[in-house]
């Protein structure tokens, strides 16, 4: 069954090509069926591959399929090959599974769009690229997938490119990602220089066999460069600014690419390279600090946003910060666990918000919502489940994964990581319930004109919501603390530090048996506290937020304006670069380059205007020149020979 792995990639690629090439002539139903069928088949094969992997004994659960040799130059050898192991099999299940649901949802959501076939072609292409990223068995092929998802993200953010803001957001996402990718590319080159190979197995084997001391400078540099790539793709400080703007794309795209799958690529990459990262304590500290800072920073911005999708975008950044925090303290399993549960509930929340936007004919401002819960009951119920899951209330999925991250941060990291994480969790619970209350509860602030058309979404949109809600409820049980099936499943990949995992648990035991349970109680209380505060402010005393905003005008303004980071970046990077570019264009390009090219042409024209009089048209004259030339050469040679 494992041999089928290439088919997982093939179906989305075929689907993308069919819709891209012939979509214009196909009927809408066929376009949707082709796209969903491709992903559905891909999901089916992924399940088969997953089962095939489970049938193997745990220590043999790594399968490599070499397709062909791609680039061969000297000792450099890049293959096109796929690696199936617990980590990548989990990722393909998430990508194809969540992707399949979002494809179905899109059939309803995008139904009236004139770019229907283009949309599905991009979406399939994205799935293909993401699968390539997670299945590749070497760094270069992974980089290809990495860049391809970036491209698809660009295409889909700018899907409604007639809108200036959408095409600007697409450009921003592409350019900011380029900064990270630059680091990633350098990291790959350094890996090749150090290990003389870019194959995962060879590199990680060499790294784990003690050739490099812990804290080795080269390894530190490599991991930092790779992390730069991860920070760009996974929207961490300082490269997170593109993700909120990416909400200009269609909502299912935000759900699939900018919440559930692509943005987790950075976490996946770090988890994949865990052997390298474990060799560099310094990088681990950087990863954990940036993760924790991002979690808090983005959560605080999320408090004041009024656009329903932007709140979710900042919450995504914040949750990604958690995953990096987990990886940074060495708890890769916890990071991947949160990646998985996050994929479920964040896809659910985005699709739910899409359903709200659909019901309100395109309105995204939460100040113009409210009281929707009776109008769109299915959306409300599923959205509630997603919100509770992300807020971290047991027994929903988000609780277990977030709790595990906080526990690991406390045990392996330090109290600071834990307190930042816990405070961010409080903020998360608060702003998510603020969103829920503002959207679904209270009095309706909906435009009366819009209110007439208020309707629940069609079945192909609500069914994915229900399935995702189910996953958000049960998804956490795979990683129950103490008896974590996920931990056991992933241990071959993170096996190099199985010892370390033990250490974590032992240390926990050392602090007293009650520590994990105590942590659970604390994080539940934190979440309930956040929810209570949101309830007080946005349901009971609705004048309170306004009063607070007036009272704390300065902090409010700073948060509302997202710490002015975009403005600062504009001032420091964007505008100087623009100015320099204008200068380069006007001075160097227009004056020097064009000037010299035109100058050469003018010189040739000018001189030939003089010399063209030699061209009389009489053959006799030409013959005469030849004779004169011959005589001249004769005289010259005789004179030189003397």
């Amino acid at each position, binding site marked *: 069954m494992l041999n089928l792995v290439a088919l997982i990639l093939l179906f989305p690629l075929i689907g993308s090509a069919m819709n891209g090439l012939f979509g214009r002539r196909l009927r809408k139903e066929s376009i949707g069926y082709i796209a969903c069928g491709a992903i559905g088949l891909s999901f089916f094969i992924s399940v088969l591959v997953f089962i095939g992997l489970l049938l193997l004994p745990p220590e043999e659960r790594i399968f490599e399929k070499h397709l062909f040799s791609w680039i061969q130059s000297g000792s450099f050898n890049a293959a096109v090959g796929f690696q199936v192991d617990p980590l990548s099999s989990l990722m393909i299940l998430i990508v194809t599974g969540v992707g399949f649901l979002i494809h179905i949802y899109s059939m309803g959501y995008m139904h009236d769009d004139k770019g229907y076939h283009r949309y599905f072609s991009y979406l399939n292409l994205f799935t293909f690229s993401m699968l390539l990223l997670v299945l590749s068995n070497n760094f270069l092929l992974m980089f290809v997938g990495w860049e391809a998802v970036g491209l698809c993200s660009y295409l889909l953010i700018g899907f409604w490119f007639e809108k200036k803001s959408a095409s600007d957001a697409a450009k921003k996402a592409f350019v900011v990602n380029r900064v990270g990718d630059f680091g990633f590319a350098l990291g790959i080159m350094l890996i090749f220089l150090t290990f003389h190979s870019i194959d995962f197995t060879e590199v990680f084997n060499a790294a784990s066999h003690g050739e490099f001391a812990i804290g080795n400078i080269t390894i530190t540099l490599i991991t930092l460069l790779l992390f730069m790539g991860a920070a760009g793709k996974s929207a961490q400080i300082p490269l997170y600014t593109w993700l909120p703007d990416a909400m200009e794309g269609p909502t299912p795209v935000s759900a699939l690419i900018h919440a559930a799958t692509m943005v987790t690529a950075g976490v996946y990459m770090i988890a994949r390279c865990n052997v390298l990262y474990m060799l560099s304590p310094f990088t681990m500290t950087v990863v954990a600090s940036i993760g924790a800072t991002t979690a808090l920073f983005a959560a605080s911005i999320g408090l004041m946003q009024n656009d329903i999708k932007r709140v979710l975008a900042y919450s995504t950044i914040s949750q990604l910060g958690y995953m990096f925090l987990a990886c940074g303290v060495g708890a890769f399993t916890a990071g991947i666990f949160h990646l998985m549960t996050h994929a479920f509930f964040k896809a659910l929340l985005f699709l739910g918000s899409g359903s709200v936007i659909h019901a309100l004919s395109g309105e995204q401002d939460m100040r113009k919502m409210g009281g929707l819960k009776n109008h769109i009951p299915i959306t409300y119920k599923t959205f509630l489940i997603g919100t509770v899951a992300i807020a971290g209330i047991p027994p929903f999925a988000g609780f277990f994964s977030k709790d595990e991250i906080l526990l690991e941060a406390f045990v392996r990291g330090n109290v600071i990581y834990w307190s930042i994480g816990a405070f961010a969790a409080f903020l998360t619970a608060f702003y998510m319930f603020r969103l829920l209350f503002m959207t679904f509860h209270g009095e309706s602030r909906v435009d009366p004109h819009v209110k007439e058309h208020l309707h629940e979404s069609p079945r192909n949109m609500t069914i994915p919501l229900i399935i995702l809600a189910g996953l958000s409820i049960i998804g956490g049980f795979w990683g129950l603390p103490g008896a974590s099936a996920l931990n056991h499943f992933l241990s071959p990949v993170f096996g190099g530090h199985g010892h370390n995992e033990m250490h974590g648990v032992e240390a926990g035991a050392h602090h007293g048996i009650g520590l994990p349970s105590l942590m659970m109680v604390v994080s539940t209380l934190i979440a309930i506290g956040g929810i209570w505060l949101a309830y007080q402010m946005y349901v009971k005393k609705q004048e309170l937020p306004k009063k607070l905003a007036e009272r704390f005008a300065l902090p409010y303004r700073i948060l509302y304006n997202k710490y002015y980071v975009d403005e600062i970046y504009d001032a420091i990077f964007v505008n100087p670069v623009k100015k320099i570019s204008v200068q380069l264009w006007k001075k160097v390009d227009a004056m020097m380059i064009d000037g010299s090219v035109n100058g050469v042409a003018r010189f040739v024209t000018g001189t030939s205007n003089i010399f*063209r009089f030699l*061209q009389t*048209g*009489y053959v*006799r004259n030409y*013959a005469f020149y030849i*004779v004169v030339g011959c005589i001249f050469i004769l005289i010259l040679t005789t004179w030189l020979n003397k």
Partner: protein
Amino acid sequence: MITLTHYLVLSAILFSIGVVGVLIRRNAIVIFMCIELMLNAVNLSFVAFAHYLHSMEGQMFVFFSMTVAAAEATVGLAIIIAIFRNKETVNVDDMNIMKW
């Protein structure tokens, strides 16, 4: 005694006559004949060298150049006829359109 120098001087004189003829005559056919004269002046020096150096190579070259000259005469005459049909003249002063 006729030495190599005599032959070479004769050859040079014939060649120069040919060159001057090409440059100053107006009739295309005469110019053409002058070119033949130049060719044959060179042939003469070839043969002279071959004789005095006791080598057959010079004579071989002459055969080649005579062959080429025959071919060239055919083509050249054909061109002149074509021009005459077109312009009704073989005066080279009337042929000055080879310019921009």
